[in-house]
């Protein structure tokens, strides 16, 4: 079957030309093709989630709500949350850029378990279909957090279906993480020591650790929830002495580290782009690399900070609060190291760099407001208000989506062999930055003023901020539609890309764009440290 001979075919035709039938795509085990399949799938989900939230922002234009039914409104924001978290943010960078680049970056021909990789995409698609069935049947109204006993005993939405969808996509995520970890351990090319790996791989490794060790807990939790939902009795049922807070503990044991599933790969992308466009080595390589691991480990120790006002033990709250501050330290270190990389560099402002700088700015703002909600007494006031909404959107959308776009623009020539129109790329980066701040900065203020999350109607004094936010959302929507248009355009009309259009270092830039099916004609031997940028050369190049 998939057992092949050692020597690869000598013809180095690109992976895109390796068969044009639907079957050659749907049954492929090539990590690069699977990355493309994933890219198409998550793009669909990104826009499904986007449409749902457009209705939400539309509703909030008026204090009494533009949408008449509160039930519909609840289902819209719940669907937005479920789709965006599990079907876009969690998979986004790892399964697309990660899948495509990991073997290239370690000098391997594929991942360790190519068929499991394909299986993980199929699981993802099946999960997506189950979710769409749930959506078609009427959706869920519990928010993406599925808190019991609302979700288990009271909700009239299709909680069990949605939970099953999330469980399945969880297994897809576990399969991906498992593949990445084993590949990094076992398939590095000769000479590719741990400290010669690009930081992107360190962050993918850390992300995979979380995927592999946190996701199973979510699966078990949602199975328990489904059991309780079906049989009307279970471990979270307060009427028989079950503890609804147990659900929150288990849920956040996954879902807090999951935030770092979303952000760590983004940090990895930025750690590649900043040195490339500064023509300079990454400042403090070992610190940045180990900070990813530290974030992954500490992220497991902080979940209780979602529960400071839920009736959790005060002692637990104290422990979780101080650990939450601890997890912010490595993030801060990373930001300083990126700035250190820019220092005395030769900085170019191509679109990937603009997105990356946008990431640093927005992520800093998101991270700083994370301190507010990690501070116990401040969280008492801010918990479950729009402040929290703004905070995690700054991290996950301002940070993560910017980083995804940065990476997409950076490696687009490698993936597709085409260049996109640079001016459009820069314009979109700016529009997204402006639109994003217009959308979410007002939410910090309205949150501090007390507006609760997930409100279908609200007191009129909050209207100004909500209208501002909705206006920003319209700008943001334009910003997100633009790349869809010009990147698609580039596939048809874009200029042919050279092997290394950005003059970047790294193994992936030494193989043709797009790469051949077997990635490298002969397995490379690595001798150089990563980010071996020579400023003098850069000077000549731009002279």
């Amino acid at each position, binding site marked *: 079957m998939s057992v092949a001979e050692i020597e690869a075919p000598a013809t180095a035709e690109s992976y895109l030309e390796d068969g044009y039938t639907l079957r050659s795509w749907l049954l492929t085990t090539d990590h690069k093709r699977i990355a493309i399949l994933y890219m198409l799938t998550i793009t669909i989900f990104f826009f499904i989630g986007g449409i749902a939230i457009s209705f939400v922002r539309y509703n909030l234009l008026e204090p009494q709500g533009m949408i008449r039914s509160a039930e519909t409104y609840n289902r819209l924001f719940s669907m937005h949350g479920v789709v965006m978290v599990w079907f876009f943010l969690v998979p986004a960078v790892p399964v697309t850029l990660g899948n495509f680049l990991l073997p290239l970056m370690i000098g391997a021909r594929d991942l360790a378990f190519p068929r499991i990789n394909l299986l993980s995409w199929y699981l993802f698609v099946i999960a997506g279909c189950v979710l769409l069935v749930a959506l078609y049947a009427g959706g869920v109204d519990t928010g993406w957090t599925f808190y019991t006993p609302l979700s288990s005993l009271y909700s009239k939405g299709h909680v069990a279906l949605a939970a099953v969808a999330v469980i399945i996509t969880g297994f897809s995520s576990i399969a991906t993480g498992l593949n990445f970890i084993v590949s990094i351990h076992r398939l590095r090319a000769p000479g590719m020591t741990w400290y010669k790996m690009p930081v992107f791989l360190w962050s993918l490794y850390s992300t995979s650790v979380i995927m592999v060790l946190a996701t199973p807990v979510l699966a078990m939790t949602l199975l328990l929830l489904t059991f309780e939902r079906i049989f009307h009795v279970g471990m979270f049922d307060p009427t028989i002495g079950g503890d609804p807070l147990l659900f929150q*503990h288990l849920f956040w044991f996954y879902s807090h580290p999951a935030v770092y599933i979303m952000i760590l790969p983004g940090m990895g992308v930025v750690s590649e782009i900043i040195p490339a466009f500064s023509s300079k080595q990454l400042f403090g390589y070992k610190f940045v690399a180990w900070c990813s691991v530290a974030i992954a480990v500490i992220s497991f120790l902080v979940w*209780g900070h979602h529960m400071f006002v839920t009736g959790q033990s005060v002692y637990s709250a104290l422990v979780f609060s101080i650990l939450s501050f601890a997890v912010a330290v490595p993030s801060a270190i990373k930001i300083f190291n990126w700035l250190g990389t820019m220092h005395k560099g030769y900085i170019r402002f191509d679109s990937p760099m603009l997105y990356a700088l946008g990431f640093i700015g927005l992520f800093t703002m998101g991270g700083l407001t994370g301190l507010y909600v990690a501070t116990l007494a401040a969280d008492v006031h801010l918990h479950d208000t729009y402040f929290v909404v703004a905070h995690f959107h700054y991290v996950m959308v301002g940070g993560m989506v910017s980083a995804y776009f940065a990476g997409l623009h950076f490696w687009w020539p490698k993936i597709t062999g085409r260049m996109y129109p640079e001016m459009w790329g820069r314009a979109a980066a700016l529009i997204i930055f402006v639109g994003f701040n217009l959308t979410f900065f007002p939410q910090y203020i309205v949150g501090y003023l007390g507006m609760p999350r997930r409100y279908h109607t609200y007191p009129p004094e909050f209207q100004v901020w909500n209208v501002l936010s909705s206006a920003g959302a319209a700008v943001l929507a334009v910003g997100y539609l633009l790349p869809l248009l010009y990147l698609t355009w580039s596939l048809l009309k874009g200029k042919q890309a050279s092997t290394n259009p950005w003059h970047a270092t790294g193994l992936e830039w030494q193989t043709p764009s797009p790469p051949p099916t077997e990635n490298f004609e002969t397995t490379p031997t690595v001798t150089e440290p990563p980010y071996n940028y020579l400023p003098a050369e850069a000077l000549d190049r731009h002279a």
Partner: protein
Amino acid sequence: MMRLLRGAFSGSLGTLAALFARLSPGKKEGIGWRVSGLLLTWAVMLILVGIQYGVSRLHFAPGLRPVLLVLSVIMAALAAIVFMEIGKGPGINRLFAVASLLWLLILLGLGSMDPFTRVMYYVHPS
């Protein structure tokens, strides 16, 4: 340092497996000693289950509860070391196994901290 720890860890597992083999009669090489190692482990596990069952029949004191759990943990460890041969193969096998236990500890430790320290509601002595 890491290498030393790793060496010590896999070494001790190997010793434990070998110890079980040596304790048993039979040839020290070939299939013989591995088979007798497996059989001996199995016998030890059966004895432990026997103890667990016997104690439970006898309506034991509440203080013995942790002991019953510890017996199970010992059996699980024996299964991992002897049946699953955790000492063999690449070192990452051990790394993964240890990581899973560490994360299990985090989950159970930090998770149960809340119920064990929670004051359901306390009235200040007014």
